[in-house]
């Protein structure tokens, strides 16, 4: 549930969700946050920038974003996104209002292969809403979020492996494992890729980060695709939920912004 959401808004959300043809309630002219449940002044601008001026954007409780109320370590803030009861999710975009670089990742689960759910860690510069926007086949963006408080400074400190120089020895290493899902259906894929994920916001250290990761099964079928950006934490760990038990080993491939290729099997 969104903090501060009124029963009226909830009803509107429900209406909007049940009937995609109903235009969402008009924005109150005097609300500079554009009806944002988090009351973020950045929200209207973020919507335009990431979804386009004409996009249909709705707050939707079926897009669940979970994270800690307080970021104990602002360079490793864990988030889990799960979309439940919303069919035909094409992609999930994660945006952080008050980060210097707002977009964290864009996840494309292949329909029938991977579920619209992802866990990851990112760097948080200051207290902010963390939002996930799930786009359905009709083009509508369904938005959920959570508020994370922070001691600050997550994007502007260099990572541990950058400080001790060890990143060069481990760059691009892939490790991971497929875990059986609890109820026996599907599977949980967890992947770690060693990469310093430099944000470019630390003096003298240019941006150096993973750009794309894809996972294919042993038969060459693509299961999911992920675009990652600077705020993703150093040596990223991702959790994905697969729709079935695909034939393994799974192939993880990717590339960073310097053209280094990532290859590994799980």
């Amino acid at each position, binding site marked *: 549930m969104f903090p501060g959401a009124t029963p009226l808004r909830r009803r509107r959300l429900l209406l909007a969700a049940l009937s995609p043809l109903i235009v969402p309630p008009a924005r109150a002219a005097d609300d500079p946050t554009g009806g944002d449940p988090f009351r973020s002044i950045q929200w209207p601008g973020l919507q335009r920038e990431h979804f386009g001026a004409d996009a249909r954007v709705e707050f939707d409780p079926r897009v669940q974003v979970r994270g*800690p109320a307080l970021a104990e*370590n602002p360079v490793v803030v*864990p988030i*889990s996104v799960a979309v439940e009861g919303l069919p035909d999710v094409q992609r999930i975009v994660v945006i952080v209002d008050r980060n210097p670089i707002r977009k964290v990742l864009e996840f494309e689960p292949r329909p029938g292969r991977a579920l619209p759910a992802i866990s990851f860690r990112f760097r948080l510069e200051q207290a902010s809403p963390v939002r996930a926007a799930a786009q359905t086949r009709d083009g509508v963006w369904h938005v959920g979020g959570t508020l994370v408080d922070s001691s600050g*400074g997550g994007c502007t400190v260099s990572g541990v492996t950058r400080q001790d120089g060890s990143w060069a020895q481990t760059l691009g290493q892939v490790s991971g494992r497929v875990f059986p899902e609890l109820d026996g259906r599907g599977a949980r894929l*967890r992947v770690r890729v060693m990469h310093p994920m430099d944000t470019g916001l630390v003096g003298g250290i240019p941006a150096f980060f993973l750009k794309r990761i894809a996972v294919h099964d042993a038969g060459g079928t693509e299961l999911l695709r992920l675009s990652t950006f600077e705020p993703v934490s150093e040596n990223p760990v991702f959790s994905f939920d697969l729709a079935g038990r695909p034939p393994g080993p799974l192939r993880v491939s990717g590339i960073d912004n310097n053209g280094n290729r990532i290859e590994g099997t799980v």
Partner: protein
Amino acid sequence: MSARSRMLAALAAWVAAAALAAPDAATLDYRLSARALAPGVYVVEGANEDFSRANGCNIINTGFIVGDDGVLVINTGPSRRYGEQLRALVAKTTPRPVKQVLHLNLHPDYFLGNQAFADVPRLATAATRSGMRAEAKAYEDNLYRLCGDWMKGTEALLPDREIAAGPVALAGRRLELRELAGHTASDLVLVDRDSGVVFAGGLVFVDRIPTTPHARLPDWQRSLDALAGQPHQVLVPSHGPVVGDARGIEQTRRYLQWLDRSFTAAAQRGLDLVEVMALPVPAEFRGWAAFATEYPRNVVHLYPGYEARTLQRP
């Protein structure tokens, strides 16, 4: 546990509840009070809570021991003001001068009151000194954010002398330092041989979720075993009430064992951090102070180590 130590514990709990005055934010007065645990051995008790403006970020039990020619101060609290008020409290309690300050580990409320003790030797182990050097800036920033005005004028003043395990020089006293580890890389325990009072530092938490930013659980468990074999009449944890029995040692041991088992099982199932934070926690632990804030921190500090082992290639 003897009848005598049981009585001592009950008395200690009662006096603690009666004596702990709420800090006054208007005057930035921590309203510290010294409670005698034995002749010349005092504890200065903080709130059994998490850092907050309401408690002035005073959540630590500091202490001091009066010798024939001077006073040994054990930890200096979270801020310059705390240090100043602690020093005034010592002066009110005894005419003897402060001779030295001892830091039991590197955490911020063990040394951020040091500015009030700039004129006396400040002792810590080599590992604690280097840890403080590395973390001091972040500690200042973090406590300013959490505690606001209470931190005014606080700057980290580091310990200036090294100390190792062994006897501590204080005339007329038989004090012994043990160096253990696990809560941090170096955890000192101060034993007053005459009174049987043990200042256990961060190794023991009583009725409070342990903090783990520098924890190594196997080492910590070994240290608790060592402490369980250490005869004592009164145990002063850094956080939580003073006890006359092994309750704190047992509580800390149980909690760390549970964390280890729970995180091992979660990593085997493939859970991610947020899911681990949402796992069920035994009622006993949920009833301890600072549960809501400290347990998620435990997860962030320790779980990545467990999951990394399951994700590595066999």
